[in-house]
């Protein structure tokens, strides 16, 4: 048996993904409706954002286009979670019914195998929307387009994605202990609505909470500032990719620990 490295998992992932998309396409109506729904959700989000700025030209010193930049940034950093970790939403049901056991017999990583089962293609609409918003805001702000700036954006975007993924994974894993864990996951998902605002608009208490307890400020604000206002970033911005990676690793371990605990409760 060959060693199962990164390439092995990547290959498996794309094979499962291809099959999954193929089967989703076969439900054409379902596919179209959910994609259209996702687009409307995004448009509605954007419109409410826009209306707010019709009345306030700036918020805590952030201009409309700067806010738009953070908004686009947060959409993008949520996308990987939306697309790749969507099966976390079903985890509660699977654990409750005991069906989760069926994932435990394959000779590959349990978390990977579980999450690979579902790819939410709707997230791709969000991806397109996020890119559009970000590019538009970038151009309007007159930020330089240098290879370094793009590289910075990608690195800090990756870190931010890890934070969102970690939040959702940890929240989903709570179902291994709590029966009514839907609220935990729902709460985690609702918090992400606050992620798109600069943390400075919140009161000190929430600023603390959103930085150190439920670190949603790392989904857009801290990493986004690296590109938006590179001259006034704090240490936390610099550390955000590292924090994201570490936080995701911890959430992953928490999930795996929960899974091993699930089995030991018998059925």
């Amino acid at each position, binding site marked *: *048996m*060959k060693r*199962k490295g990164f390439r092995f998992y990547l*290959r*498996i992932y794309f*094979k*499962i993904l291809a*099959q*999954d998309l193929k*089967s*989703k396409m076969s439900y054409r109506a379902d596919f179209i409706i959910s994609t259209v729904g996702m687009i409307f959700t995004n448009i509605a989000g954007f419109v409410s954002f826009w209306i707010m700025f019709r009345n306030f030209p700036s918020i805590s010193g952030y201009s409309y286009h700067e806010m738009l930049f953070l908004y686009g940034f947060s959409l993008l950093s949520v996308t990987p979670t939306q697309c790749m970790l969507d099966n976390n939403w079903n985890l509660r049901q699977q654990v409750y019914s*005991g*069906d989760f*056991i*069926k994932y*435990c*017999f*394959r*000779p*590959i*990583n349990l978390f990977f195998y579980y999450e690979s*089962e579902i790819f939410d293609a709707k997230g791709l609409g969000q991806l397109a929307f996020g890119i559009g918003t970000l590019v538009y805001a970038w151009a309007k702000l007159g930020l330089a387009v240098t290879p370094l700036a793009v590289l910075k954006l990608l690195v800090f975007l990756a870190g931010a994605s890890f934070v969102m993924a970690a939040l959702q994974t940890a929240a989903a894993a709570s179902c291994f202990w709590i029966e009514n864990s839907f609220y935990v996951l729902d709460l985690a998902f609702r918090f992400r609505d606050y992620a798109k605002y600069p943390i400075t608009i919140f009161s000190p208490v929430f600023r603390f909470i959103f930085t150190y307890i439920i670190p949603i400020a790392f989904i857009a604000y801290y990493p986004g500032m690296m590109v938006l206002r590179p001259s006034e970033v704090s240490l936390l911005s610099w550390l955000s990719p590292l924090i994201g990676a570490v936080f995701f690793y911890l959430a992953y371990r928490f999930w795996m620990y929960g899974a091993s605990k699930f*089995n*030991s*409760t*018998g*059925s």
Partner: protein
Amino acid sequence: MDEIIRINHITKEFRVPDRHEGLRGSIRDLFSRSYHTVHAVDDISISIAQGEIVGYLGPNGAGKSTTIKMMAGVLEPTSGEILVNGCVPYKNRTRNAQNIGVVFGQRSQLWWALPLVESFRLLKDIYQITDAQYDEMLALYRSLVDIEPLLHKPVRQMSLGQRTLSDILAAFLHDPKIVFLDEPTIGLDVSMKAKIRTLIHELNRRKNTTVILTTHDMGDVDALCRRIVIIDKGKMLYDNDIEHLKKFFGAYRTLKLRVKGDLSEQAKRIAAELPECSVSANENWISVLVNEDKQKVISVLSQLQKSYDIRDMQLEEISSEDVIKRIYEGGVV
């Protein structure tokens, strides 16, 4: 004979929270939790050779699934030692998984939306099956069952029988050394049961795959297993040839009668008349357990029809539940 599974005195304990009744009880549970220990598996030792089919029997909650989970490496024994194919399953879950196949009754492990053949191709990648091996296995499957109509059908659209069949084929696909089948024939019709038994038997014969079969269906056991292991309440009750068990219980038949009059009243009278047999009654039938070594069923029947108005009758072989109950009460081993 090569030993493939070795289990030495394993025990599995679960800590279960005590729940108190009523609202007051729930509030109490919220603040102070007390636990009691459940011995799901209690000092079991088994040795299984490559190529055996072992029937693993016991009533619900006896600890069968727990044992299988421990052998599959998803559960760590509280104490004792398990070796599957020479390695400790819990410490090497993914390596162990490469050597085993699992079918868990009604929980399909296949990709719900995909046609079977696509599931097979994904499994081929996951288990790193070579092209040659894969083709050989598919050729074998074709010779054993009619898989063509299944291959291009999404699992979601299959009947329960087709799905079970598919799951069994998927479990054998990577040519594992051991396959665990947990109630593979549950809920299936007679012809599908027969088909699945033949399939398991043939795969075991051709590939020399060890099969651990848990079931409540004595028909499965009769068709497939030469050896059976019975556990109840986590303890091992029996581990021997099925022939041995049959010799012991083969002589027993259950005669079920429906007679005129109140059944429980009549049952008492019959019990008094037939001291050799054990008689019981429910709302539909009077059951008379006859040991044919001592008294033929026919003679019991002719004796009874003289004094009772028999409306209906059935003759049954002793059921697995009865066997297990008898073993538990009497101790055969």
